[in-house]
């Protein structure tokens, strides 16, 4: 295997894990095992995700890619019987499973967009300001600013600026998903996790979200789980291929899709299974 594409042997030297030595790793995963009750979902996964890049996690259904993603903001805590048994995840050097970690703070810094669009059945404005209001922000001007900034960042401002007080559910599917992205942006996270954000969208809406992802990496680090290999190829900088809970290969997207070093990766990206 190409030494630059394998996992870092030492998580303390994140640069080694990154193909792009200029960018520091923001998320470092080390030897992570994860179980749902008796079922092993992740098996010794180690990888380092560079900041301000789009990293795609691909693999067939049940390979653990969503589980891995949901470890980054500990959304797995909500699932009965889900448990990390070994390994660490560090974000900016902090072990997020550590006892002193405030999960709520973590989730403010690591936003998430879900597979099924889930705007609250409130107005667009309330959807965006939800996170800020949780933090106790009451100032009308700050909220207004945040709404405009987030919606602009999510490329939704022009479409909804005249109906900010209509229900978020009145938007189309693609708009709803961008609203969810805007909602996540509003709390100023560093990392945005996207769990198959386009799986329920039509091709046109998908294209717009992909465009948005491309734009957002200027400001945020993005980790995206996707089923769609073209999507991974189109919008990610780096790609990790997981299979049966193991990280098979992790490299530049180009490398993965054009010249994978592992035969399973090759079989998967060329569409022979999965």
């Amino acid at each position: 295997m190409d030494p630059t594409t394998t996992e870092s042997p030492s998580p303390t030297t994140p640069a080694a894990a990154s193909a792009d030595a200029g960018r520091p790793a923001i998320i470092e995963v080390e030897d992570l095992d994860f179980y749902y009750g008796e079922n092993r979902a992740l098996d010794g996964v180690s990888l380092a995700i560079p900041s301000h890049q789009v990293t795609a996690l691909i693999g067939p259904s049940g390979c653990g890619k969503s589980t891995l993603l949901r470890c980054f903001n500990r959304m797995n805590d909500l699932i009965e019987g889900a448990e990390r048994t070994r390994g660490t995840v560090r974000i900016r050097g902090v072990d997020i499973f550590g006892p002193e970690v405030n999960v709520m703070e973590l989730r403010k810094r690591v936003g998430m967009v879900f597979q099924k669009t889930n705007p609250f059945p409130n107005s667009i404005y309330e959807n965006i300001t939800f996170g800020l209001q949780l933090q106790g922000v009451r100032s009308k001007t700050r909220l207004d600013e945040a709404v405009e900034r987030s919606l602009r960042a999510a490329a939704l401002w022009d479409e909804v600026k005249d109906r900010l007080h209509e229900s978020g559910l009145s938007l189309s599917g693609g708009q709803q998903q961008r609203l969810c992205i805007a909602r996540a942006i509003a709390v100023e996270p560093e990392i945005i996790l996207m769990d198959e954000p386009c799986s329920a969208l039509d091709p046109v809406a998908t294209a717009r979200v992909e465009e948005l992802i491309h734009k957002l990496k200027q400001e945020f680090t993005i980790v995206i789980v996707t089923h769609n290999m073209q999507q991974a190829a189109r919008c990610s900088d780096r790609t990790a291929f997981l299979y049966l809970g193991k990280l098979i290969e992790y490299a530049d997207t180009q490398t993965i899709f054009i010249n994978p070093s592992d035969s399973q990766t090759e079989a998967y990206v060329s569409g022979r299974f999965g």
Partner: protein
Amino acid sequence: MATPAEQFRRQSTAIQRREKVIVFFLRASAWIILLAGATVLGTIAWKGAGTLLQPNFPFINITFLAEAPQTLHVFELDGETVEMSDQDFREFRAKLAEEAAASGESAIVPDSTSYVYAAGGIFPNIVGTLLLVAGSMSIALGLGIATAIYLSEYARQGSTVRFIRLAILNLAGVPSVVFGLFGFGMFVLFFGWNVSLIAGWFTLAFMVLPVVITASEEALRAVPQGFREGALALGATRWQTIRRAVIPHALPGILTSSILGIARVAGETAPIMFTAAFIMRDKLPWEVDRWFDFFFQGVMALPYHIYVVSSKIPQNEYSARVQFGTALVFVLLVAVIASASLFLRHRIRARQRW
């Protein structure tokens, strides 16, 4: 040889006749049910209207709604049949005696036939029922909704919670008289609260508690998981998530079922028969010496009054008046509550779109 078109026709006429008969019976069963319901309500409305309404202004019999039940005296005076409530009759007799004393003759008091509860109104009963409903629903809703929130949002969804949930669901089907029995043994006798408002509150509250818990939990679980995840992913704490992303969307459902619970509490007789209801009480609930006596007094209640006047007193045209009048007022009260609930549910179903 018949043409294909004729074959179709012949086949269908034979079966269609049978179809029609079956459909007729099915339709009949639906309409028989409605007819039966309409008969019950119609009879009560028709006969009760005679008591509740009156031909001249203000068209509603205020006495019936605003006074306590009294004994009715019926007697012959100057060849006419006169009906008087107990209070009026006493005054009338006093007046007669006075007149007689003034003129120096002995008073001639007419012989009267008396009918219990047939005069006056049902004001204390209405008040009693409202008090019972308000108190018991406060207890049941407070405890029930909090329990539902814990079970659906906080508790580990293991076998213990599943068992508790199943037990609560099954308790919802236990007859109300069993809860009445419990309330009588526990509150009235064991705690020594006697027949009192507070004993009735707790008995009724525990009776609807399983219903409130089950319905509230259902409403909470109907809120999509995405709302919770969305809020949590924005850094909300558990309570923030529940308060801001779950309860607002579950509240209409919770309220609907609570109102149905109110209708049930207002309509039940068996649980209050020996825990809270008095056949007759002269004082109104707020006429107490010390404030805490308020909780330890029995009250009159509409359903119990119906029971008493329909089975415990002799039946005649005078008792029929108070019977149907009380039944009508009671049905109207419950109908308002129930239709509010049905209407609300309709509205919510129309609005909910997730």
